[in-house]
């Protein structure tokens, strides 16, 4: 029995809302501390002495190191390519990218079953980005010429999804857009 995170990896991962929230918290704390440091200069005390909290620097450094290492380990199972081997796609769609269009062998995808995207490029590097009907960026990969660029993903909601090129590939790049439809299984 695989861990739940492995079935999530490459499918929904953390989601942009989680990342946005995390950023707000981290940046908020940092800005608050910086503002506090600036504020303390309005009321200087012991101006020639090192602040007391600095003497516990070893402890702070250790704590920061633990957070980084913990975060590294925590996010590991969510790395898309590491999860692909554990997912069993039941659909495969080939996509050919070229300046400045996408060609899909099928524009219909069944929801709630993993789909394998096999994406190749005929010319330059493109970016295969998939947006949900409401405009959330769900997944992406670089489409490098000379390689099969595979990505496995499971769509959960029916609707019309957008593929947009996410790597600058020439002057027609902004219009390298197409759609496909996710239907209920």
């Amino acid at each position: 029995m695989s861990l739940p995170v492995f079935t999530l990896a490459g499918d929904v991962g953390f989601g942009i809302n989680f990342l946005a929230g995390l950023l707000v918290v981290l940046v908020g704390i940092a800005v608050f501390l910086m503002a506090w440091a600036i504020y303390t200069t309005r009321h200087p005390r012991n101006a020639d002495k090192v602040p007391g909290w600095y003497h516990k620097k070893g402890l702070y450094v250790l704590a920061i190191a633990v957070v980084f290492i913990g975060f590294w380990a925590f996010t590991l199972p969510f790395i898309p390519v590491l999860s692909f081997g554990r997912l069993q796609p039941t659909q495969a769609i080939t996509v050919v990218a070229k300046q400045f269009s996408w060609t899909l062998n099928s524009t219909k995808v069944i929801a709630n079953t993993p789909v394998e995207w096999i994406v190749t490029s005929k010319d330059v590097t493109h970016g295969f980005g998939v947006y949900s009907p409401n405009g959330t960026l769900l997944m992406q990969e670089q489409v490098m010429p000379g390689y099969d660029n595979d990505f496995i993903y499971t769509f959960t909601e029916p609707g019309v999804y957008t593929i947009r090129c996410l790597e600058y590939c020439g002057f027609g790049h902004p219009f390298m857009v197409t759609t496909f439809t996710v239907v209920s299984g």
Partner: protein
Amino acid sequence: MGEETAVSVESKWEVPANIRRLSFALIVISFINFIIAGSFALLMRTDQAGVPATTAQVFYQLLTAHGLGMFVGWQFPFAYGISFFLLAYFLKRPLYSYRMALAASVITMFSFYAMLVSIGMGFAAGWYYLYPLPFYSANAWTAASTALFLASALGTEVGFIVFAYVALRTVYSTKMPGSSQQRFYTQSSLYRFIQSIGLDAYMPTSTWNKLEPLPIPVIGVVVATIVLLFSTPSVMIEQILGLYQITAPPFDVNALLAKNLFWLYGHPIVYFAFFMVIGLYYYLMTTFANRALPSERWARVPWPLLLVSGVGVYSHHLYMDVNQPVWINLFSQSMSYLIGFASGLTVFTLVAVMWRSKFRWSTPSMFIVASIAGWIIGGFIGEEAGTVAFDVYQHNTYVIVAHFHFNALAGVMMASFGILYFLLPLLIHRDFPSKVLGRIHFWASFIGSFGMSTCFLVLGLLGAPRREANVVLQTLGFTTTYAIWLDLALVFALVLGIGQLPFLYNLYKVIRAQKETAGGVPVV
């Protein structure tokens, strides 16, 4: 602590006038290039805000020139300029070779302007020119413009190598220029090297106590230079292979190899001025706070970590390349965290310096403190984007644009203004004529750079792709949500742009001034 060096230097050492003039000239050139590259950005912002200012072709030419103008046109002369001055000032010795320093500057700048010419000829593959795009222009630019771009880029790297030779020889050479008798420092060359990258902080206390450590601004110059020197051969190989591809068409450079070769250089390049600025933070913050560093040793601890991670982070540009070996990406994620860790240590010390101090608030100190805030915010965004599992939502979106604008614009650029305001009296014995204009410059730059970068962050979180001439597409309904943030970004860009006018006026007046108004004493 502190053993006298073999050469006794005058207690009041003044940097030779030719070095001061060269440094000042380079810094002025860097800010002129900043204004030029910034103007390109303003045009792009105008276009993105829905006011047709360019065609798609011109937009991508501007995109290429803007990145190049900032990373090379602004950064290199600025880094060269402060390096030459800082090395001479803190080491209390002339440069190893003034002529080579001049040659490095001329070669680099000449090559940079030649790259701009190639863009004027039509080349528009981006400053990072992902292979094989330069050779697949869809008839938009010629092979000649690509060849000129690549050949000129090689020129900038040759110029940098000459610079690195001068800078490192100035640090490591045991002989004073013009003298064959005296040894400039007493420690072994190996220990000098250890000191120059901050590794002495990891030595046993008995060893640490034996010798005076090198000033941290010198360490900043050395680490920045070594990181880029280590990276430069890879991009030179990539460019030579590209030039060969133009002359021998069946030959095709592997795209994944080329991408690795480029980013092995293309990421460390952003640390070139950045690490020098970090080195200067220690000196400037202690000066503003009128307080010594709480621990000289701890202040050196981050530097070997920055040296290692400065190169190792490169593959976070390839997280979304599924054919890139995953272990390289995991290594780069580790290095991205390590650089965050080392940055955190630095900020920790800088805040301790500032905490409850009699901090002297002035134009340079305001720029410096604001730049530290920009560095912190940009750093957190970078840590998120540097995590492989998260990059799937952020790669090639405006989140990345926000990251490097917080770091490079709100961080390094703001710092560079503070450094110029601070160093000017030391460089040319003159000070800016108007303090009020300096304050206006600060507030406009602060509001403009932080505001614009915040708009980029929101755009990125909404999923807006970067490097798009048309971010908002009428055929894609959800992209209309980007419009308001693009409009706001233009407003902040205008504030930033207009805010440079008082600075330019001040700079013009100080260049034109005939008599010395400051006797080599910094303004704090």
